[in-house]
């Protein structure tokens, strides 16, 4: 097993089978985040911090749109089963140890977003020979870069003063989410012959 996508074709493109499965996973994860942000985004923004919700919603949607258009899709019979397990994993998870029931769902969403943005590095799968002119290669680089920017909102919220009293609960929920997301990501990569590092 390799740690990188490939073998690439003569033009430095990732095999379509690998493109399909990686893109499907990323669309599932970022699509779930987009849906969850859409649910909490108010029609009228009343507080300054809600502008970030708007940004997160549209950036997640942009990632989904980009992958839909930049991927060389091929039929993949295993995707139906795999996508069902991914979608089940993105459901809001109860966060134990946070007394404020109004705040707990926001913590749950932030932990999922942190795990996706921090724990999944699609550009790190690209071998050095990957063609910079290939749209899928460019999409993976763009998603990883954008994820590190989006992540800042989750870091600010989860490390913020409002959650200091719940720091241990937040950390535990976040580590759990990271482990879940990393496991799914590694399993998906293993299914296309890639041994992702821990």
């Amino acid at each position, binding site marked *: 097993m390799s740690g990188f996508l490939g073998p690439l074709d003569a033009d430095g493109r990732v095999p379509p089978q690998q493109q399909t499965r990686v893109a499907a996973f990323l669309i599932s994860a970022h699509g779930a985040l987009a849906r969850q942000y859409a649910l909490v985004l108010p029609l009228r923004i009343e507080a300054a911090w809600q502008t970030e919700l708007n940004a997160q919603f549209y950036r997640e949607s942009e990632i989904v749109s980009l992958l839909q258009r930049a991927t060389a899709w091929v039929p993949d019979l295993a995707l139906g089963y795999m996508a069902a397990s991914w979608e089940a994993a993105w459901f809001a998870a109860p966060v134990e140890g946070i007394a404020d029931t109004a705040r707990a769902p926001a913590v749950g969403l932030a932990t999922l977003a*942190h*795990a996706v943005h*921090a724990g999944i*590095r699609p550009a*790190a799968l690209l071998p*050095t020979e990957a063609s910079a002119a290939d749209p899928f290669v460019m999409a993976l680089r763009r998603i*990883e*870069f954008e994820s*590190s*920017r989006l*992540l*800042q909102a989750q*870091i600010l919220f*989860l*490390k913020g003063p409002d959650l200091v009293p719940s*720091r241990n609960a*937040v*950390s535990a929920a*976040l*580590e759990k989410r*990271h482990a879940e997301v990393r496991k799914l990501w590694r399993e998906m990569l293993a299914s296309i012959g890639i041994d992702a*590092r*821990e």
Partner: protein
Amino acid sequence: MPFLNHGSYRVRYELDGPADAPAYVLVNGLTQYSELWAAYRDALLARNFRVATFDLLGQGVSDKPALFINQDDHVAVLHRLIGELGEGPVFLSGISFGGLIALRYAIEHGQRLSGLVPMSCFAELSPQLMLIGNALRTGLILGGTGYLQDLLLPMNLSDKWLKPLLDKLDSVKRQGWLVNDVYALQNLMESFLDFQPLTARLSSISLPTMILNGEFDFLTPRALHETLRVEIPNSALVIIPEAYHAFTLEKGALTADLLARFAEDVLAGRWQGNKAVLVAPDEPGGEITPFPAGYDHLRAIPVRRAGP
């Protein structure tokens, strides 16, 4: 690949050399990983030392706590690793962020060490260092690990080292980019947000201590190392000629030789710190000379030192 446990986290380490040999433990800087000490491992093994390296929590193959990394955790991990080394002599060295961890270890567990070598190090955040640190963190946040590397490479390495690599910088940066995650680097950098200066505690370090500082290090300039020299009783400051902050990468053979000579001197009872200011040779094995008498080692231009 062996791992230590720290709570629920795993810390990857590497230990080479005979179990009864004096040991060197090397602590990474912020964006480093254990493999970068490979040349030191070879050089020190050849000089009959045992060598331990590891990835800090949040680095390389070690686990990366998702939200918080406390500097106390690094000291605890280091204590755990040194506990693996048995009862023989242990020399501890670290660079930059790793030097700070080594200093803290020496303050808290100095009785377990035979010698200390802080490199490109500091005991407090001067206004310049704090502001540069904040700017580097912002660079990481806005531009990712690659941009942080772009800032650090020209800041910490010489033209002589960089020039032949200018068209290969992407490959130079790639391994560091692959093993370092933005959130983990950010957590490491943010562990400074509640940093308490160590200066007042340095005098409790009674160990033989060799402080290494690059001649042209402007990230942690001479004045920050001077604090260590003045406060640590049995210390000497050794200036590495024509070196920048990351001289351990650029001048590995020379630095490994200095580390070995220091430990050999300590073990033979020859080391005398005397808070001396010394100049390292250009090449391994060369003579270590006193800084010219009467001149101020804190200045870049040759200014005669003011009288007492």
